[in-house]
């Protein structure tokens, strides 16, 4: 029996951390909320350590929850991203009157959901993880009570999220009907045998829709700009990176690994989605007046790029996917952190105009932002380029050269709106006064870390590449 709980340890540990922070918050007076930050970070670190420590433990509850290399890889990503989000939000939360305690608890709870999603080998368990995460993030989006936009964004996210969950669940039901089980291994076995083809196809399709929504693929992306724009910036960062990464983890494990035999069925649809997502994301981002909203569209576009890896599939495709998730996380988190730095009391300094002249007032922030923008656009020495390089290489290797070409063209379009930020920072005057280092030390730490990560992943990608390769290998 003991083995069952080993695989559960990371998730359980994170849950315990959340509860500890929750209880602590009840008993700490208003001005000592700092302790909550450190407890949350400690909780994250501990669960990451536990995951690494017990890597490879055999599955819990009849192999529905695995702690294989793949899961551990993502758990580390979630832990780091959650930690960075907390670092990013310390100053932000205090200034905007969001209840600090609940904020960190919800981030930890959504991390619990993500860990379950990454290590779930059963559709229902995956569903539960997905819902835990989503519900926590719905509330997070609406935490900024004094701003109508935040409430509205939470409302929109909730409505569409629940709607998509309906489809996702219906898909699971149909697959359950077709294959007799929701356990991915048993489904995989049943795929070979005779089963109601239409039922299975419909089920797989609906699951795909559910995931596509979560990843903000094209026809299901309409909620992203409004929700990302309305939510507090750290939450937007969390949504754009962690939630998307968890969805892709699920997508990779379920579709790439377990449902490999059905490849020819779902690849064309995913390819169409990928092309639509990339193009739409890039083109619409061109005329945005707010950097935050532009970053929202950019995250849609990058979801499109990530889907290229899914279409490419196989060992190389999965490796490219995992590596790109990490590099995407680094640069996007950093970019949102800098946007968060521009917040002034109640107004979100996120418009292009607000960035004007930042280069002279806050050289460090401006330089970091330029790094992120260049990396997002895919300029060589940085993580974005290496990520895209492996992505397109995987696509070409799998014979989808047209996808690679479209990807490159899209990157070309994206250069415009990314460099416009840099142009604003260094060649225009005016703009909002950003937070100083003393004002938000944690924020600067987050920006610093992500900037270093962006450059490191660009120049020395072998470390991350090797890790992602190991993660994929453990899937077998």
């Amino acid at each position, binding site marked *: 029996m003991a083995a069952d709980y080993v695989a559960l340890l990371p998730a359980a540990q994170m849950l315990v951390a959340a509860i500890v922070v929750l209880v602590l918050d009840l008993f700490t007076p208003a001005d000592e909320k700092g302790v909550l930050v450190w407890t949350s970070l400690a909780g994250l670190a501990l669960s990451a350590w536990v995951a690494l420590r017990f890597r490879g433990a055999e599955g819990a509850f009849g192999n529905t929850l695995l702690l294989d290399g793949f899961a551990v890889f993502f758990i580390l990503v979630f832990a780091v991203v959650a930690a960075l989000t907390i670092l990013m939000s310390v100053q932000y939360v205090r200034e905007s009157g969001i209840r600090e305690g609940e904020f960190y608890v919800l981030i930890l709870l959504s991390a619990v959901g993500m860990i379950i999603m990454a290590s779930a080998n059963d559709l229902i368990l995956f569903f539960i993880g997905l819902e835990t995460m989503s519900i926590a993030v719905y509330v997070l989006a609406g935490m900024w009570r004094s701003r109508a936009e935040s409430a509205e964004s939470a*409302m*929109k996210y909730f*409505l*569409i999220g629940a*709607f*998509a969950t309906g*489809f996702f669940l219906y898909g699971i039901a149909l697959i359950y009907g077709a294959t007799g089980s929701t356990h991915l291994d048993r489904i995989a076995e049943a795929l070979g045998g005779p089963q109601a083809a239409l039922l299975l*196809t*419909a089920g797989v*399709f609906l699951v795909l*829709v559910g995931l596509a*929504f979560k990843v903000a693929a*094209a*026809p*299901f992306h*309409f*909620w992203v*700009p*409004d929700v990302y724009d309305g939510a507090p910036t750290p939450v937007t960062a969390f949504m754009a990176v962690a939630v998307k990464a968890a969805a892709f983890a699920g997508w990779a494990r379920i579709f790439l690994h377990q449902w490999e035999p059905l490849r020819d*069925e*779902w690849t*064309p*649809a995913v390819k*169409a*989605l990928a092309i639509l997502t990339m193009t*739409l994301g890039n*083109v*619409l*981002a*061109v*005329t*945005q007046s707010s950097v935050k909203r532009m970053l929202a569209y950019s995250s849609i576009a990058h979801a499109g790029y990530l889907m290229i890896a899914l279409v490419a599939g196989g060992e190389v495709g999965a490796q490219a996917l995992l590596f790109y998730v990490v590099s995407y996380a680094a640069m996007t988190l950093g970019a949102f952190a800098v946007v968060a730095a521009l917040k002034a009391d109640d107004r979100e300094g996120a418009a292009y105009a607000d960035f004007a002249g930042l280069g002279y007032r806050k050289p460090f922030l401006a330089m970091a932002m330029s790094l992120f923008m260049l990396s997002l656009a895919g300029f060589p020495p940085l993580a974005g380029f290496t990520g895209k390089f492996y992505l397109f290489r995987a696509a070409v290797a799998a014979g989808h050269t047209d996808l690679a070409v479209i990807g490159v063209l899209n990157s070309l*379009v994206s250069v*415009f709106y990314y460099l416009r930020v840099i142009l604003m920072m260094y060649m225009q005057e005016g703009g909002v006064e950003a937070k100083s280092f003393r004002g938000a030390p944690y924020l600067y730490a987050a920006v610093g870390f992500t900037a270093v990560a962006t450059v490191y992943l660009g120049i020395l990608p072998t470390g991350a590449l090797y890790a992602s390769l190991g993660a994929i290998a453990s899937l077998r």
Partner: protein
Amino acid sequence: MTTNLLRWIPLLPLAAAVLNVFFGGRWGKRFAGILASAAVFGSFLIALRVFMLLSPDAVLRDTLYTWIESEPFKAQVSFQADALTAVMLLVITGIGFLIHLYSTGYMAHDEGEARFFAYLNLFVFFMSVLVLADNLLLFFVGWEGVGLCSFLLIGFWYEDPANTTAGNKAFIVNRIGDFAFLLGMLLLFWEMNRLGVPSLDFAALKDAAARIAPDTAVLITLLFFIGATGKSAQIPLYVWLPDAMAGPTPVSALIHAATMVTAGVYLTARLNFLFVLAPYTLSLIAIIGAATALFAGTIAVAQNDIKRVLAYSTVSQLGYMFLAAGVGAFSAAVFHLFTHAFFKACLFLGAGSVIHAMGGEQDMRKMGGLRRRLPATYWTYLIAGLALAGIPPTAGFFSKDRILLEAYASPHGSLALWLVGWITAGLTAFYMFRQLFLVFHGTSRAPESVQAHVHESPAAMTIPLIVLALGSIAAGWLALPSRDVWDPWLQAVLGRSNPAEHGEAVNETLLVALTVGIALVGIAAAYFLYGRERRVREDGPLWGTLAQKYYIDELYDFLFVRPFTAAANWLARAFDPGIIDGAVNGVAGLVRGISASGRRLQSGNVQHYLFAFLIGTILIFVYWLRR
């Protein structure tokens, strides 16, 4: 045998050039001149040492490093020195040194002195690389380098726009020739690769020459010859040389008389084994050589600028050299090149000294009666003039006579070629002595102010003149009919071409007498017309066309220059903004348009999104099922 001596011949001038560029101006007026001359003198000493080491068929080799390495093909920066190179080196460094010495005097009062000497040294560097190169690629580096230096030096006084346009003209016309040369080189490499010998080293070329397909050989040699016409100013690419006189006189002397213009002849001599394979090209070279000689000779007769006369004379003498090469007498061509370097350099420096004395005046009609005022210049000018005209004791007589002999007697030669050569010899004598009488004899036609301060040039300028004048005489004795030293020396490199063995036993002395006779007739005519008082009126249609250089420049301008610039303007004004910019901005505008309308889609109403979600699902499901 290998040595590491050769590398210093080019490196010394290069080092001096670099030093002059950075420190020239700062370390006092004379520093630049002295450093430059010392460097070239050093190279001259090494060249002498190499000359001593060499025997007719020995080859010194010095490899520095591998420049290009791509599997089968390997191009190295490596120098070789055989008999032919030794001769050329002596000319370049020897006469180069004399001209550097001369320039210290001539450029003394010019504030850009350091820059001048830097360019001059750079030129000597490139010319020696050209001559020492052991493969065609390095040769081409030298070839381009000298083109660059000639451009820099022609346009040296860049304040005056006329000089810069002359520089541009020289560069562009050279580029046309170089383009043909490049094509020839590539075709040659293509052919060599086909033969399985992917290398451009002269040695490898020589061995594989026999196996090259005849018609390809003709094409290759033709392309090389077009390159040579560009560099050595033959028809049709000679137009740049007369305008090159815009540069300082020492430049004209060194580059546009002695060394660079002879690069074309050196090329034909170096690749003689190729040209021999293509008799069609050889005869073409001969015809063009002869035609250029005669054509340039006639124009020289009607020129009034002292340097332009010499410029056309150079073109004409180069014509002679190509005539010799065309009839297969490569050693005669190189011999004429050798002697021509001496007396033409002496003439140019003499003209420089006259201009120096006359305070920059170059029009002969405003000179005269300088014989007594500039004795040293006069006598050296006379000796060099005699050499150019080909009067017996001088070197000019031996080399020109050898060429005319070859033109008549050699298997490729013919009576017509000899006749053209013969008439040109007469013309040469005539225009040479016309110049001599106009400048030095008769009464001075210069205004009083100029005449007042006419003075003999300082020692630094007259010593080189004297040395060159002596050279113009002594150089000839290397190939006396009785004791011929020249031919056996170059035999190993250029192959046998002694007229005595082939053709009917023509009466040599008759031919010699005829050549000297026509020369004397030329001189007498010049004396009669210009000797004492000017009686002839220089006008009339014939004279006008000659003076106007047969309107060739205007013809080229009309045929090539004007249409080219018109096309360029149209492209710049109409095509580029309209089409290219249009396309680029068009696409950007399109994307912006789509983006703006796309944004409208984001209506903000959550139910629209839900509806889009639903429609999206249905569409994709249909797409999924239909696949």
